[in-house]
């Protein structure tokens, strides 16, 4: 029997409400506690590359599928803004809007994923000590540093332009970014606010690469960071090998949406 438009609309609404309930009530209950500050040690022989990025600067890292990148806020006074592209086709890139929308949450923490614009998983948060990251507001820019500090300063926008240019990309390739160690929330009136007390020296996140990627990490103060004069401190990036994800992998099984995104990602490699 053919369904009427009304019946289809009602069925679609029911499915949406079921997905919403699962995504906002069931999934968060299954997410793990944050990683302990002294947890998840990386053995020396798993380290591929380690570098320290000084305040204001950036670095570009290539990750093969299955490798991980640890980002460490050495002093508890830095934030790291990050963008990334699929190495084989850089028109596929990080998509913060889909990351938030698909997971029903603007907050990401251990067990969550960062999605590309093609319905695939770019990065998995396999370890995370803080869960205090920003996907909505973005990094610093020439305008924001002048507004905040009254002078031109090194900033994330310019870092992204420079990094993109060095791999043959340009301004058109720079998408909205995620900023780690930036505890941004939206209050009841819709204003952005900085949650105090959510940053500690040594906070880290481990991002497992789910496809071959080029990522850029920029170590500049987040525009909302109230630290004056500027927040500053080095950050450490450790590219390392992690065990392959098993079928019961935390990030793969955290939500039905994530499971589908992983299935679509796997098709690139099978």
């Amino acid at each position: 029997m053919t369904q009427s438009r009304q019946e289809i609309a009602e069925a679609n609404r029911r499915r949406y409400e079921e997905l919403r309930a699962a995504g906002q009530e069931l999934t968060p209950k299954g997410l793990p506690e944050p990683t302990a500050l002294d947890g998840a040690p990386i053995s020396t022989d798993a380290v591929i590359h380690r570098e320290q990025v000084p305040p204001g600067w950036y670095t570009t890292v290539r990750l093969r599928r299955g490798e991980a990148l640890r980002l460490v806020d050495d002093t508890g006074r830095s934030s790291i803004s990050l963008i990334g592209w699929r190495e084989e086709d850089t028109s596929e890139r990080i998509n913060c809007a889909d990351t938030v929308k698909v997971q029903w949450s603007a907050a990401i923490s251990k067990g969550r994923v960062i999605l590309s614009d093609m319905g695939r998983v770019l990065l998995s948060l396999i370890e995370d000590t803080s869960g205090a990251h920003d996907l909505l507001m973005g990094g610093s820019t020439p305008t924001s540093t002048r507004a905040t500090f009254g002078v031109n300063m090194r900033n994330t926008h310019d870092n992204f332009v420079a990094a993109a240019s060095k791999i043959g990309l340009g301004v058109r390739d720079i998408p909205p970014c995620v900023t780690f160690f930036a505890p941004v929330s939206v209050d009841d009136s819709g204003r952005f606010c900085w949650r105090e007390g959510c940053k500690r020296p040594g906070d880290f996140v481990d991002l497992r690469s789910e496809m071959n990627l080029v990522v850029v990490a920029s170590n500049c103060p987040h525009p909302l960071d109230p630290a004056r004069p500027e927040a500053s401190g080095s950050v450490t990036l450790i590219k390392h090998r992690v065990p392959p994800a098993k079928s019961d992998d935390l990030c793969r099984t955290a939500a039905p949406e994530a499971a589908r995104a992983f299935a679509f990602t796997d098709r690139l490699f099978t």
Partner: protein
Amino acid sequence: MSNTGISDAVYSCDIPAERPWSRVLARGQTLRIIDSEGQQAVDALLYCADDPAERYSAQDTLRVQGSAYIELGTHLISNKGRVMARITADTCGRHDTSAGCCACESNAVRFGETTRYQHACRENFILELSKHGLTKRDIVSNLNFFMNVPIEPSGKFTVVDGTSAPGNYVEVTADMAVLFVISNCPQVNNPCNDFNPTPIRVVVRDAPGS
């Protein structure tokens, strides 16, 4: 021009349900977007007409205004930090710019593989942008007029029923010559269009006294 409801209109067009549209607005021109039948999301992108590498930036816009929703008075900021346009009238109240546009690929992730082969805003954007020499690469986080996406302090992020009534409108006045691109959202899997996409109307008028 007749039948616009606006005596000084220089252009008007009904955009059918699920269809894209684009037009260059001269500096000072105002675009009125009318939600003709109500509860219809309208996805939009802006590009500097003289240099499309400069385009609307959702994150710059939200950072500059310090709050998470588009409303009367919001300055729409480019990726170079310039004001491209501003919201000069709004009978609806609140609009989104954090949820992006629907796409075949993200629909399949959100709602299951069976929804992959449904028309989506990104298909509209790609086809409309191709008329202007632009590609998927040029699609950034967009505006979603009449789309209701509350973000709670916990981060909880939900597309809920739209609040726009039939005839509600929003007006965008251009601060520079902009290519304005619209996808009249075809999404039928969430409440942004009340599960029933409908037509919208756009009307352009010149700056007063021009």
